[in-house]
């Protein structure tokens, strides 16, 4: 068929491009100039032990704000598309969840929430940060939804947490213009001693808000998808 041969042609073309990338790749020996600047001046300028966090929250903080906006938009569109029109249609037959899932979720969910909070509070010291911590929190809450499919959970609290943390993120960024050298500058608070929990200025606070925002958005997406199944 003509269509199949087109598909094969496209695949071969992309494979050819990627094979060239692979053949020409020799591995890096040195950091690029920008990365070199981050590695040498990051500890004094930002004070974050995790340089990825320094790049994400401070050097490229505006990009992170854009990313959070995209995530918010997609969560909002999911909520809009999967709005449950008829709330009375709640007589879907549900299987009982197994004893194992029920008991395990009661033990695991609080631990997962705690671990998520740990990951985003320590985002400037160890691998992790707001996005990862938020994803862990959301997966804990989705586990709770799976274990208790009948339990009704409102969107209200999730929306409040999401709005407050989003607005705080932007306000902290604006405070950087007023009290420090630019938007999302983290030197409003003192940088503290390098490598301790209370260091890196504003980064832990911003990451707490990012973590709450990402966690509540992903939970909202999961909740919308779950509610919409009642209709089908």
């Amino acid at each position, binding site marked *: 068929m003509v269509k199949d041969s087109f598909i094969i042609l496209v695949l071969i073309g992309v494979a050819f491009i990627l094979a060239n990338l692979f053949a020409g790749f020799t591995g890096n020996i040195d*950091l690029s100039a920008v990365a070199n600047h981050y590695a040498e001046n990051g500890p004094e300028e930002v004070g974050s032990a995790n340089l990825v966090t320094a790049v994400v929250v401070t050097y490229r903080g505006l990009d992170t704000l854009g990313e959070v906006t995209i995530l918010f938009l997609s969560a909002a569109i999911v909520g809009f598309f999967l709005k449950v029109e008829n709330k009375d249609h709640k007589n879907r037959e549900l299987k009982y969840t197994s004893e194992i899932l029920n008991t395990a979720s009661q033990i695991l969910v609080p631990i997962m929430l705690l671990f998520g909070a740990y990951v985003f509070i320590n985002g400037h010291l160890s691998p992790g940060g707001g996005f990862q911590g938020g994803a862990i929190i959301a997966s804990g809450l989705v586990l709770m939804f799976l274990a208790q499919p009948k339990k009704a959970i409102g969107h209200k609290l999730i929306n409040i947490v999401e709005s407050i943390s989003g607005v705080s993120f932007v306000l902290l960024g604006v405070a950087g213009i007023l009290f420090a050298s630019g938007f999302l500058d983290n030197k409003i608070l003192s940088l503290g001693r390098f490598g301790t929990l209370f260091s890196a200025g504003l980064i832990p606070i911003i990451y707490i808000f990012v973590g709450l925002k990402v966690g509540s958005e992903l939970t909202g997406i999961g909740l919308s998808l779950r509610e919409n199944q009642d209709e089908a």
Partner: protein
Amino acid sequence: MIEKFNLENISLAVGVLVILIGLWGLLTQKNLIKIVIGFALFDTGIHIVMVSIGYIKERTAPILDEAIDVTNASNIIVDPIPQALVLTAIVIGLGITALMLSYVLRMYHKKKSLEINHYKDLKW
């Protein structure tokens, strides 16, 4: 060929393979959910490629703890920028995947079918 068998080349090859599998799924599958899975695989492959391009031989993660001399950090760590970029891209990919799945659910409610051939509204 034997010098190609090191960490960055293997991970680059895996990334390239995952991209191709995702593209194949995107182009050949008829089930809407499988198309979304193909898209997510494509996304993941690009992430693997980006991280492996940022890798530098025999260096460590860009986290300056006790094990790393801060004054000499630029000679010890790998490039943090692709990692930050991929961190961003993973979250956006997740959001986009959820968005596509919600479109699929909506389309399924409309026509009770997941077969892409049953949706001819945009076909010319």
